[in-house]
């Protein structure tokens, strides 16, 4: 085959690939308007892997979040069987943060947890591949691979991760946790896979300040609210494209 013929073949391959992609996109559009697609996404069959068609995230409305209320934090502790101690080193997957603008005196309260970044620094620095991002955007630690080096804790701009220093007992069967590994908010991945369609913190919030949903689905409530109201990422300057977004800060 001459050089020119090779070139033509490659171009054809390229064009074919492009056409195929176009067809796939058209098919996607054809399905997309159906509301049932959302339901299907929620109740993913147990033998199907998580798909990048979904991107799970949270929208937190700090104007609704009450100072002093700790319901989401407590719900997280209960759901994930995290023992609440008084040691600085105790695990903390979610915490309440109070912000005060010193100039105006305006205060805001918000829960802070793993932001489930699209470009997570914890995954970048992990030397073993234990820190990873699932296809549906959930950032997790594979404790089978984690060596407890804690690089990810230093890399995380949100201080979202904790190290388990002591032996644990009475874990939730759905949430394995143990000594010597780093851990963080899993976005209640066990609940998502089960099809609950929410997280423990979102369920617990009486003010409705936490909304869980699929950022990739334009029909989801979270996407609609994000499209309607201004929201921001914490440390947006880092351009990590976080899955957790905030309103009112």
């Amino acid at each position, binding site marked *: 085959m001459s050089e020119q013929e090779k070139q033509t073949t490659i171009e054809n391959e390229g064009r074919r690939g492009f056409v195929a992609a176009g067809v796939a996109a058209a098919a996607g559009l054809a399905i997309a308007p159906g509301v049932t697609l959302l339901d299907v996404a929620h109740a993913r069959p*147990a033998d199907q892997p998580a798909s990048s068609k979904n991107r799970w995230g949270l929208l937190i409305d700090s104007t609704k979040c009450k100072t002093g209320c700790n319901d989401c934090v407590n719900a997280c502790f209960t759901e994930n069987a995290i023992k609440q101690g008084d040691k600085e080193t105790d695990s903390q997957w979610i915490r309440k943060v109070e912000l005060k603008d010193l100039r105006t005196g305006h205060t805001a309260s918000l829960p802070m947890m793993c932001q489930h970044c699209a470009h997570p620094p914890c995954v970048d620095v992990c030397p073993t591949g234990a820190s990873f991002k699932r296809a549906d955007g959930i950032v997790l630690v594979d404790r089978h691979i984690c060596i407890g080096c804690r690089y990810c804790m230093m890399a995380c701009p949100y201080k979202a991760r904790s190290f388990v220093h002591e032996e644990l007992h009475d874990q*939730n*069967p759905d949430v394995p946790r143990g000594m010597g590994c780093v851990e963080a908010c899993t976005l209640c991945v066990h609940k998502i896979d089960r099809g609950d369609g929410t997280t423990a913190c979102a369920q617990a919030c009486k003010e409705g300040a936490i909304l869980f949903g699929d950022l990739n689905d334009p029909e989801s409530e979270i996407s609609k609210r994000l499209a309607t109201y201004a929201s921001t990422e914490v440390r947006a300057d880092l351009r990590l494209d976080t899955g957790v977004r905030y309103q009112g800060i």
Partner: protein
Amino acid sequence: MRIPTIKTMGTWLASLAVVLAVGVSSLAIADGGAKSAKEKAMLEGVKGDKCVMPTEDMRRNHMKYLKHHRDETMHQGIRTTQFSLKGCVECHASPKNNSVIGTNDNFCQGCHAYAAVKLDCFECHSTKPKANAAFHPIAGQAPGLAADMRKDMAAAPQTNAAGAAQ
């Protein structure tokens, strides 16, 4: 002394063979009986009629099934129940302490202690079934994990069992 002819020799050999065969088989029976009694004593906490794979296969390969399943679950979110560790615990938790470890009578710890193989699943994973789980996961009719396991078992390919039998 009469020199044995080929014919008498043949008869003698045949009877020897019969004696040997009977002896060996009775030994095997005795051994099998003792072993199963020992196993029964050692491993409490077995619910249902059968495991998710034939018992011989599970003895040899459960760690491979668990490891394969673990990676799929962790990284892809595939949560079929056939080879889920949670499923092991559901069925094999001892009625005494509701756990698979703790004493050498418990299902997982008992065998691992006997075989001198370190068991560290339960440094992170729960050793007890979930409180509201079905009472009798495989034999019972309650929905939930038990129903899922039955479904998975029905759908599962049985090729591994054949492979282990060879």
